């Protein structure tokens, strides 16, 4: 199976069945299929590329170990998201109890001095507007300022493109809770960015 190919739901199910029987190659296909989604999600939740990489690895390792118990009541991808979400929330809670770690916004230090962290960028489609680096950093900070329960729903819905139903399954909360959290998250994000937008300090790119 070619890398990077988007697989259909039935193909995924067949591969999951093979992986459940211990087929490592099949599991490798699942890793290839979902690693970017999971990494992007965890990275948004934690705003730390190193922790995001660790959590992504751990999520797949746990999934592999728990696969024999995966009954298929939910889809594989919501099940995988749930594992990653639990791990990411654990990291967020541990952080609250200890010193904050470095942020994705902060410059990296090296022997030659400090330099800006270079984030991978994506070519903009017609609907994706170009924005300045400062704008992106401001938005990342505003997301990180959201309480983790609101941040989780905001990222899953707005950035990962998950449905209300899938988010309810991933987070194990009622559908109404997902909707109310999303409403509150949008409101909080708007307020977090209000002063910057009103002062004209960030470029919206319209």
């Amino acid at each position, binding site marked *: 199976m070619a890398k990077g190919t988007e697989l259909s739901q039935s193909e995924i199910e067949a591969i999951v069945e093979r992986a459940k029987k211990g087929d490592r190659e099949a599991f490798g296909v699942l890793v290839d299929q979902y690693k970017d989604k999971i990494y992007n999600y965890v990275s948004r939740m934690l705003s730390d590329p190193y922790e995001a*990489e660790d959590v992504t690895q751990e999520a797949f390792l746990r999934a*592999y170990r*728990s696969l024999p118990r995966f009954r298929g009541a939910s889809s594989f991808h919501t099940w995988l998201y749930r594992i990653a979400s639990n791990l990411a929330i654990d990291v967020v809670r541990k952080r609250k109890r200890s010193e904050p770690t470095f942020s994705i916004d902060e410059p990296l230090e090296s022997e030659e001095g400090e330099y800006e962290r270079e984030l991978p960028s994506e070519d903009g489609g017609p609907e994706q507007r170009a924005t300045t680096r400062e704008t992106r950093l401001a938005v990342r900070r505003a997301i990180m300022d959201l309480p983790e329960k609101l941040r989780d729903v905001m990222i899953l819905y707005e*950035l990962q493109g998950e449905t209300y139903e899938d988010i309810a399954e991933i987070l194990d909360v009622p559908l109404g809770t997902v909707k109310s959290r999303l409403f509150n998250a949008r409101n909080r994000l708007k307020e977090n960015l209000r002063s910057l937008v009103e002062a004209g300090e960030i470029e919206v790119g319209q």
Partner: protein
Amino acid sequence: MICKQAQEDLVGCWGCADELSSEILSHLEECEQCRHEALLLRETQVMLHSLPVERAPEGLTAQIMDRLPHEGQQAGWGERIARWLVPERRMQWGRAAALGAALAIAIAGGVYWYGQEQQTPLQEQVVATTPASETGGDERLAITDAELDELILKHQMLEMSQPLADDVGVGLVVYTSR
């Protein structure tokens, strides 16, 4: 009131006019503050969706595959127990309940066993108040009134202190001596 409703509706659709009722749309034409909120929401949405997708680092798949347990490789008992005790979030309550029930049964069993062990010396102590050497081998016939009173008192004390104690032996001495 209409401002509150308008701003709630605006959040629901990220400030987009397409999904708003005609009542809210007419309000927006008149209310500068609500128009400003609508603009702010649209700008927030644009900024949020402008964030680039962050792709997994090169070599992540290989790193994950290297860390997978190999076929036939079993986790150690320590790891299995740790995994059982710290499962995924939604399973924790059921397992905690099972663990709690097992502990409660073990503690109740231990308490019952300990109680049984404690009864025997008390019973032997009471019966020994009438030694066979003084009665020609028949302790039932040799008991005096004073000894009987003492035995009754001990019996009562035993009943008070150990309500579950098996004191049949003491009772037998009391009734046959009468």
